[in-house]
């Protein structure tokens, strides 16, 4: 089973999480940086949580690590979390991830 899929569209990158739980026990960060085409100029990174029903703080740490990584390539890159379960969105807002990315629920 795929853990994560990357899709490119013009200047944006969409990262689709394929497993229902993000809890720090899958090498998401390593997979993404391995698959990321570093030659591309990316201005927007969209994290798609359509298939995700649960995330804990270890999973949130993975997301923040990824955002830092992409900011290293483009400090002006914009981030967006889409298709979020409402309960996960509540947790994200609670830990102030809304300061780092736009948040859209399902």
């Amino acid at each position, binding site marked *: 089973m795929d853990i994560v899929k990357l899709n490119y569209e013009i200047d944006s990158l969409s990262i689709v999480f394929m497993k229902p739980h993000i*809890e*720090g*026990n899958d090498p998401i960060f390593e997979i993404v940086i391995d698959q990321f085409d570093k030659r591309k100029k990316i201005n927007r990174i969209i994290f798609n949580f359509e298939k995700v029903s*649960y995330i*804990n*703080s*270890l999973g*949130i*740490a993975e997301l*923040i690590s990824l955002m830092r990584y992409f900011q290293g390539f483009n400090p002006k890159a914009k981030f967006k979390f889409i298709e979020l379960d409402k*309960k996960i969105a509540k*947790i994200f807002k*609670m*830990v*102030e991830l809304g*300061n*780092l990315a736009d948040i859209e629920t399902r």
Partner: protein
Amino acid sequence: MTGTDFMLEKSVYSTQSDRLELIEYIINFFDRNYLYVTIDRYEFYLILDEAVSNAMEHGNKWNKSKKIQVRIYRKDNSKIGILIKDEGDGFDTSLVSTTPNGSKITPLRGRGIFIMKTFCEVGWNESGNEVNLILKMKSANG
């Protein structure tokens, strides 16, 4: 917690599979004993996960030979406590912030603790290697 009658005492090794089994075991224990907490199932699972993951990650460094111990007790008629202890050196609990701080919410431990504190009372023993989660119970009339 000497002299306390524990409703449940259980130890598991620090592995991902034990982590998941333990969380489910605790939730099933609450269900079997008609212990209804005021937070919902998602929030209950999340705070247990944060506490257990914290113990396994920061306390035992995912060392498969190290255990964490869980004990559940009645604090009073309206509250129930869950003690989770690891074999680590503990940490300075005075450094725990009560709110995240924008983009500075980088320390993993801080974020997990903040989530726990949002949904229940949280305390530690003196050395910082045992967390005490105190949950409110639903009253008999809901």
